């Protein structure tokens, strides 16, 4: 599991090329950016930068939670990323963080 700083360091590397969407089962089922790896890690990036689960009390909408929570952790996306981002683990670690924050 990564901590929030480690997750941020990973997701910040995203160049937005979208290569990771090609093999993603949830993206291919829904054809919607938020349900693919690129969408998920960029949602996570903004949430972290807005202070989610840290000092600030940030409201997060069901659409955003669903998109992150529906990741299957299959790691197909990792094999495609030219920036070498550990996408699946970053999303997986952030899921735990969301649960911790919500249950706090």
């Amino acid at each position, binding site marked *: 599991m990564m901590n929030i700083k480690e997750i941020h360091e990973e997701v910040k590397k995203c160049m*937005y090329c979208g*290569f990771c969407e*090609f093999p993603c089962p949830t993206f291919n089922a829904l054809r919607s950016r938020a349900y693919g790896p690129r969408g998920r890690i960029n949602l996570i990036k903004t949430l972290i930068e807005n202070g989610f689960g840290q000092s600030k009390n940030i409201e*997060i909408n069901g659409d955003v939670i669903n998109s992150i929570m529906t990741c299957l952790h299959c790691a197909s996306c990792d094999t*495609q990323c030219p920036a*070498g981002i550990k996408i699946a683990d970053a999303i997986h670690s952030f899921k735990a963080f969301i649960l911790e924050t919500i249950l706090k």
Partner: protein
Amino acid sequence: MVSMTQRQGDVIKELEAVFKDRLFTEPHILALYSHDASSEVGVKPMAVVQPVSVDEIIKVVKLAIDHGFKIVPVGSSTSLSGNATPKLENTVIVSMERMNSIIEVSDTDWYARVQPGIKVDELNLELMGYGLQWPVDPASSKTATVGGVISNGGGGMRGAKYGPASHWVLGLEAVIGTGDVIRVGCRTVKCREGYNLVQVFIGSEGTLGIVTEATLRLAPLPESFVGVMARFRSAESLVNAVIRVRRDKLWPMVTEFIDDITAQILNLEPGYYLWIGIDTYTGSEQQILTKLSGDISLSGGEVINRASTWQEFSKILEPRRMLYSATLKAAFNDYGTDVFVAFEDIAVPMSKLPEAVREIQSLGKKYNVRMNLGGHIGDGNLHPAVWARRSDRDEMERVLRFFEDVGKLAIRLNGTVSAEHGIGTQKKGLLREAIGSRNNGNSDTVIGLMRNIKRIFDPYGVFNPGKIFD
């Protein structure tokens, strides 16, 4: 008086009636559509919609005319010049991701009718079953949509033989800025029906309308394939090999290269690397390989690997496919996540390639920027990549000046400032310079014509404002 937010609220309500759960207004999700893969900074649009039919697209265009909002059509937002980045807040992104079906493939007439949201690799995987291909294969083919490739006028590795998107589109259906649906072009390669409006759309970067269907010209997959990977001591001798192969009247499908810096990042032995792949017929492989290898050694190169099938060639081409990730690796190594990376996209006539490579390298030294170089050398298309520390203003300034000068170099060598990535927002100035250079310093007449064409297709100024020209 009706306030701005009240007006926006009305628009959202009307969009909701059409798009239901395919309308997004959640700010984090809007942010996902607020920029493309370039460094261009965008703004959050007011909404994103994902149409599934032409009727829905007509409706959103009519709403835009009535309510005065703007539309940016997007595929996968992988543009590299700001083409797909919204610049105004009153923008609705029309994302074509769900319109991704193949409507028809004709293996007799060699065309395919597709919706624009299908990705190039998805299409080519399907076409393989027919022994056919759509030979426009940008390095981003895994993610680039057919609509995006057409609208950017993209090209790729097979471009050395097949040329870019403009050679491979027979017909288009589009919704233009009056809300009308037009169908232009034919199903035949020969088609002389007045002005060629298909070509007007190609490379128009979403400024004239929304492409809703494309009839694509197809080519057969090669029966057989041979290729080599070769190393050279200098860029000059590498380019001479490419020229020698052309003089021998060989017509490679793939002619790609990387420079010594990229080779170093990829842990290859020092040198400049060239890949040449030729499509051919069973029985002639050895003869072509011998000729090819001869041309390489006569130019001072050394053949490192040979391939006698497409699968083998794909394997030996792997280091070239790593160009983008090699650049990112070096950039992250140097500056971590504070890095800014940008990719140039010029083309020069073949005879000017040695000069272009030499001058790009000396511009890199002049501005003391970190860079590497690679590209589709078979059609003169060079992609210098540069990286800098975002927080270092001086270095960022030097990178921008380097870019400007690389564009000017292309103009001076009778080349182009954009071979395949398009103009977007980032190359508007260079476009004017390029046009001016061919028109005694006057770019106004030609840009004026383009502006008038836009006005005819998009009289209310709905589509992708601020792109290509002001």
